[in-house]
């Protein structure tokens, strides 16, 4: 079920009302969350429900046995079982064809003929997200950071929790699971805040991302026929598309969770206002970055030894996590190359505060740094969006041709006025809300209610006027 669908508009109030009617029965409420989550997921394809259930059962019992058998060897073996099961599922469904095709090509290159056949596999939506979420549970139990839960229903609800099941934020068991143990209290202000965050998330997805997607697709799909400036425009549109799409999803997920009395972690913190790439990576897809930091970077040695290698590994794995394609791996590598010089110069933690804090506008230096960082990130996005590495390389070569300084072609220019105005509105609102968890959290908060409501009405109107008439899925569903 898509957040931006009529189905969800009907689904959410029904689930909300039943959920709060069950408030005095914690077990029943958790069971209801699990059932609703399975309905939500099954709406897309019920055949893959068994995968979630399988992961849930395996990790529940593995964690339970870790507590039962205290010997380090047994615990390690159990952890390996969990990693093998979860990453095995991910490997089969997401990476099998990639490996087969690359092995075939590698052996062909060496002069051998190997015929490993690829499979026609459907990638289960959200598998990368819930797999990492359950892994965090078994790893934390293994590290004795978390007591295994004795309650299967709570655990099933934690794994399948519908707001963040298919595209995150990837929650840690230490944060989300305990919220299923205690009864939730409905808080009016929290719920209203949640609704506000959902609204902003819908605007980001349906207005910004989907409209930018139109032009990004138009330009990327015919990149050979456009000038450098038009290609640059296409790359910028894609940068906003992916941000609007993914952070919009996260906002809707977090906002929806708040309606049910849950608090999820912040996943995006205005990354395009970052002053360097290190700051960007502290603000972009935070739940994944911190996951890799805690469960891969630190075990590899973190900043204590082999830090350059560790950073490189993290970025490559992060790229590969996004998709079984070399373009994602190169995207990760480019970001590593941006990041490593900052790390070596010990400048990776220079910009930890909010940009232009307590000021209305950034200083010229801050503005320069923001634009530079955005440009670097956008160039890397070309690899993320392109069909192949050669497509990305040609795109970038053509983008940096002499006509980069000319105006984009008329056929594109004449179409984009509305989206340019909408992007300007979006950037201004995000700028003024950059201190908060999401842009409109405190915007106009102290103003007279009708003024605030008029602003929300304007946002809803812009959604109604500029949304696509076809439901468009979120980009990150494919990951």
């Amino acid at each position, binding site marked *: 079920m898509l957040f931006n669908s009529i189905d969800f508009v009907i689904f959410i109030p029904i689930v909300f009302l039943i959920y709060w009617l069950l408030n005095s029965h914690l077990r029943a409420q958790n069971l209801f969350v699990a059932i609703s989550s399975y309905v939500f997921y099954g709406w897309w394809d019920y055949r893959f429900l068994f995968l979630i259930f399988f992961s849930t059962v395996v990790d529940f019992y593995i964690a339970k046995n870790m507590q039962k058998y205290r010997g380090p060897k047994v615990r390690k073996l159990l952890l390996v079982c969990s990693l093998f099961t979860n990453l095995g599922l991910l490997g089969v469904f997401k990476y099998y064809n990639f490996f087969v095709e690359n092995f075939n090509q590698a052996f062909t290159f060496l002069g051998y003929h190997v015929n490993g056949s690829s499979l026609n596999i459907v990638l289960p939506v959200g598998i990368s997200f819930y797999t990492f979420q359950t892994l965090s549970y078994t790893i934390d139990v293994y590290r004795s950071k978390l007591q295994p839960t004795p309650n299967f229903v709570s655990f099933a609800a934690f794994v399948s929790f519908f707001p963040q099941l298919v595209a995150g934020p990837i929650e840690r068991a230490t944060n989300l699971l305990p919220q299923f143990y205690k009864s939730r209290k409905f808080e*009016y202000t929290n719920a209203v805040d949640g609704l506000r965050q959902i609204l902003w998330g819908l605007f980001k997805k349906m207005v910004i991302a989907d409209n930018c997607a139109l032009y990004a697709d138009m330009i990327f799909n015919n990149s050979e026929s456009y000038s450098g400036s038009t290609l640059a425009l296409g790359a910028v549109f894609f940068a906003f598309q992916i941000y609007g799409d993914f952070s919009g999803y996260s906002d809707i997920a977090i906002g929806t969770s708040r309606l049910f009395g849950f608090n999820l972690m912040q996943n995006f913190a205005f990354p395009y206002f970052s002053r360097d790439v290190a700051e960007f990576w502290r603000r972009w897809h935070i739940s994944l970055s911190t996951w890799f930091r805690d469960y891969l970077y630190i075990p590899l040695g973190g900043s204590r030894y082999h830090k350059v290698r560790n950073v490189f590994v993290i970025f490559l794995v992060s790229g590969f996590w996004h998709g079984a394609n070399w373009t994602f791996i190169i995207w990760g590598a480019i970001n590593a190359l941006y990041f490593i010089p900052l790390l070596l110069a010990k400048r990776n933690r220079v910009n930890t505060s909010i940009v232009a804090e307590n000021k209305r506008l950034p200083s010229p230096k801050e503005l320069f740094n923001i634009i530079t960082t955005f440009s670097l990130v956008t160039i890397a996005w070309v690899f993320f969006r392109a069909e192949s590495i050669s497509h990305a390389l040609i795109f970038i070569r053509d983008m940096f041709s002499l006509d980069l300084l000319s105006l984009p072609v008329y056929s594109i220019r004449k179409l984009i006025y509305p989206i340019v105005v909408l992007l300007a509105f979006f950037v201004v609102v995000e700028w003024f809300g950059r201190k908060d968890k999401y842009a409109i959290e405190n915007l106009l908060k102290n103003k007279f209610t009708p003024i605030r*409501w008029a602003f929300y009405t304007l946002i809803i109107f812009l959604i109604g006027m500029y949304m696509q008439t076809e439901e468009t899925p979120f980009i990150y569903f494919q990951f």
Partner: protein
Amino acid sequence: MMSIQIINLIKRILIFSVFLIIGYTLLLFLFGSVLKPKHLPNLVYKVGHNYLRLQEVRQTSNVDLLFLGSSHAYRGFDTRIFRVSNYKAFNLGSSSQTPIQTLILIDRYLKKLNPKLVVFEVNPMVFASDGVESGLDLIVSDNNDRHSLKMVFNQKNIKLYNTYLYTLVNSIFNDTAYVKNKAYKKGGYVAKLKPAYFNGEEQDKTLITFNENQIKSFETILRRLNKNGINYILVQAPVTSLKYNSYSNIKAFNSLMASYGDYYNYNEVLNLNDTIDFYDSHHLNQTGVNIFNKAFINFLDNNFQDLKE
């Protein structure tokens, strides 16, 4: 028990909803009045020849022939040619008109027009269409009533919601639109003013997927005509052979239409030239219209002698 806070939230949402409806409508009117139509993708308020046609239909009654259908109807049946042959005809075709909209139009105008024969132009694409384009055309061109409201809710498309709301508000302030359209001819026909010819471009293969709602509406129309004792024939107007052969399941479509009554497929009756008689892949130019209409009048003269006024 539901807590008081939840009840308060629901109350607040309801109050906001009222505020939202008023505010949304005002913004719709404001944006619609200030911005150019091309900058408002989900609002259509530009009226064209269908507006003139629906103005005229209100002044028309008791016709011999009533043409229904899409642009193949209003660009294919030249009412001026029929008038010369002593047929009083009215063409109620409109852009991409699908059975969903045809049903609304016959509910509104059939009684008044009281045709002796309905010529229902059927082409495969309208049966595959969701009907949004035609729905928009109808909302902006005609007075809206419960039929159009029902259509808007059934079709669940934001463009239709916005356009309906806008038209409703606009009608309060500005009841009539001034439309100048030289191509529109009395009786509902729309002519191609300058000579134009199809360039012979190859057409992509198309599999017609029938939209269930269109089939249902189509059946309702036929039932309604039968109930009112009005004769009808189903006609497929000519398209280029390239277009016609691009439908991979045209035989299934032809069989389906033949199962509903007398069906005349002029793609298999006339032998027109793709680059001489058409201005694009599926619309006749005036040369083609003349040939087609002459053949069709011949057919009427031979088979429906009692139609003429």
